Every structure is written in C-alpha cells, then in structure tokens.
C-alpha cells in the first residue's frame, strides 16, 4: 500500500507561498549561481545582492519537488545577512533538519548546496578581482 507523502508544515508554507522569487539584474554587487538540471529533477538559480560584505538580499528560481521548492525559498530567508565565511559554512543538512526532509530527497538538497557553493565561488572571485583592481 502506498503511503501518503508527508510534508512538514514549514514545507507546506514555503511551497504555498515561496519567498523571494526571482533574480536580480546582473550588476557588480550581484552574485548568481545555478545548479541542477530538469532531467535531474531539480534546477535552482540563486542570486544575491552584496552590501558591506554581507548578503543584503537573495532571490531564487527553482524547478523541483515540494521539498526543493521549500528549501530554496527557506534558504533565501536563512542566508540574508550572511558574511562570506558564514555562507562558506552552510551545509545542506541544516535545511534537511529545518524542513524535515526525508532521506530519499537529500540529493535535491545537495543540488541546492551546490548553488550555495556557486555563490561562494562567485563571491570569492569578486573579492579577488576587487583586490586586483584595488
């Protein structure tokens, strides 16, 4: 017999009304990262606006299951205000715990972490290019 897929209340809330949907126009203080592919079941684009070496705001676009959608949305709230160091320390497990994501979906969270790593890389590149131009 099939079990009903259960979603946590937090997943349901984010799925019903995802926060910070969209992306920032390209600009010097905007970082963009992308990961996943439709045929992998998840594709996510994160964009962040940096002010004073902190993430001032985040936007996301996501194709994926309810957990993926909720995790991406949740993340855009979670990482606001983060420094580069804080961003570098973020790991998918935090989303798994907060959103009560079942193990068979952890792979999707890894794809989201990949996007975070992408932001981190873009940030470092921006920092080093700033250092060079400074």
């Amino acid at each position: 017999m099939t079990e009903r897929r259960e979603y946590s209340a937090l997943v349901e809330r984010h799925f019903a009304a995802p926060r910070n949907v969209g992306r920032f126009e390209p600009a010097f203080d905007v970082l963009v990262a992308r990961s996943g592919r439709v045929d992998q079941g998840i594709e996510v684009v994160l964009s962040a606006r940096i002010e004073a070496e902190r993430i001032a705001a985040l936007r996301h676009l996501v194709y994926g299951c309810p957990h993926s959608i909720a995790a991406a949305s949740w993340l855009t709230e979670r990482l606001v205000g983060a420094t580069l160091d804080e961003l570098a320390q973020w790991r998918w497990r935090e989303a798994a715990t907060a959103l009560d994501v079942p193990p068979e979906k952890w792979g999707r969270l890894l794809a989201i972490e990949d996007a975070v790593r992408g932001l981190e890389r873009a940030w470092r590149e921006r920092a080093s290019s700033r250092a060079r131009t400074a």
Partner: protein
Amino acid sequence: MNAPLPIYLDYAATTPIDPRVAEAMIECLREPELQGNPSSMGHEYGRRARARVEQARAQVAAAVNGRPECIVWTSGATESNNLALLGVARFHADRGKHIVSSKTEHKAVLDALKQLESEGFFVTYLKPGADGIVAPEQVSEALRDDTQLVSLMHVNNEIGIIQDVGAIGRICRERGILFHVDAAQSMGKVGIDVQAMCVDLLSLTAHKSYGPKGVGALYVRRNPPVGLRPLIFGGGQELGLRSGTLPTHQIVGMGLACEIAEREREADVARICALRERLWTGISKLGRVELNGHRTQRVCGVLNVSFHGVEGESLKFALTDLAVSSGSACASASDAPSYVLRALGRSDQLAQSSLRFSLGRFTTEAEIDAAIAAVTREVERLRAIAPATSPAK
C-alpha cells in the same frame, strides 16, 4: 475527516457506485429472503438468491453479446486476467509456450505473464506506437507456430486509447490462436461484442462502471469450449472454473451496473466527451502541454496530459483540490514514472509531470471549470518560480 473534499476526476481508478446499483445491492443486504447461499438449491432462500445471480449473469452476458453460460464470476478483473492467462497457459502448456501481449497492459496482465515466464513460457511484449496503439500487423508478425495465446487490453487505463481488438481477434481466429481481452475499462464507454471481435476470453470488473468493487467476470467461450485450469479449487461453483460462495449482492450490483452502462452508453459518452473537450480546451491554453495517446481513438472519459516545465510531485501536491491520478491506482510507488508513458516514448521527467484526468457519469461542468482554473493557476505559478531557461523536453 473534515478536510473539504477535492473534485473527483479519478473515474478510471474506480467509479462511485451508481445509486440505482447501490439500492439493488442494499435490497440484497437487507432482505432476509435474499440472503441464502446461491448454491443451497434445496430451499427457497438459496433458490431466490440463485435466481438473482442468474438474472445478473444474463445482464452481463447481454452487455458483451455473449451467452450467459459463458460468464464466470470472479472477484474482479485482476482475478479474471489471471484466470484467463494462467488458466489457459497452464491447461494448454503442451500446445505451445509462446504468448503475445504488449508493454502497456495492466499490471494484472504483466505480472501474470511474468509468473508464466518463470514457469517456462515465452512472452513477446509488443511496443505500441507513440500514440499507444498496437497495430494489428504487429500481432500478425509476432505470431509463431507455438503461439497459444494473444492477450491485449481493449481500453488502456492510463491513457484511454482503444485498441482495435476486433481486427486482432480476426487474425487470431484465422490462425486458431486463443485471444484474451482485458476489457476492465470498456463497459459503458465503448461497445463490447465478443462475437464480432472474435474474443475467446474477456475480463470484466464492476467497479470501473459504477458497480461494486470486489466482483468481476471472465467471459469464456464455450462453443467450442476453451480449456482452462482453475486458480481456485473447491466447491465446484461456476462449473468448477471458480469455486467459492457466490456473493449475491455483489453479483446483482455488477449485473445492474452492466445493464445501465450499456443502456445509457450513448448519452453518457456524448455528455462526458463534451466535458473532456472542455477540459482539454481549457488546459491546452496553458501551452507547453501534450496529450498522451491517440487523439481520437480513445474513450470519452480519460485525458492524460504531460506538463512541460513543472516537476511532477509539485504538480500533484499543488493540485490537492483535484482527485486525479498519475498512473494506475495500484502502482505501489506513486512517484515512479508510468511505464505506459515511458513505453510511448516520454522521458522519465515528462512522464512524471503528467496527470490522468478521468471523468464520469457524475462529473459536472462546474467541476470541469474549477479543475481548469486550478490547473491553470498552479501550473502558471510553478512555472513562474522555475528558472526561465529550463529546456523544454
């Protein structure tokens, strides 16, 4: 138990019981005089129950243009399919070990065939075209000297297409090969004529045609007789082909359901067809949607649609206002992409982003409009939050 109920668009999984059928069954459940064992021919209670059983047998037989003595009561089409396939193959094992079927049959056929393969039979699974149709020539070409049985479904439960079983039946009859048809989804939706279609065995179930769950029938040609090894041995009911006490109320329900289904078929079909067209017109306005299965060679009530740019699980979760299905109700892992859509050439991803809307006798225009609104709203919403460059597949 207080959540508001979604709109029921899952008639292909099971239909609600027609109130007229329910009342006939309720009479059998309440009237002491109808509660004898239909095999207790020694007293009036048994004889009255038996009379109802035989009346229902005649109703079912009439609905498929067969003779009443060819109808064997079973517990549903799963059992009928198994009785037909395992029964014929095991009985005639010495006549040949080759069977022809298709990749898009119901699990009750595919899993029975798998069992036969483990018993030494060899099965050719025809691959239908991208429209879901098996061409009669595919069957001709697959026949071998040792082919003893061809089994094909009449109406596909996931995509609603209608196979040309008449043409295939004639090919089999000419070659002297037995022909079984799984007609679980046909009653009341498309005419069934075992004579004209040259069918030797035909599986039926009540609960897809406004009758009760848990009762079905197998039509077995008697002239000349088709040899069949029973699955269930015992009291010798149903001429020894299916032992077990006959459930009068269930059988009465099936008989009446079949009679009503045939009598009201034309009107039902016309009405439901119009609703389905309305639904398809509404949904296709979304763009980037694809109808699965042949555009016209299909029953009225089923619309299987693939949605590009929307992940399957989210699509279903977003549409909790609709009771629809993503494949067969009996598939155990609901997230696995449908093997039927896969056989038609859809990618895993797209197969998973598909919904089967199935309409029926009690579906209203208001329900269809609400369904269109919900689908439009949610698909647009999910597409809007997805990365724009997602390649359409």
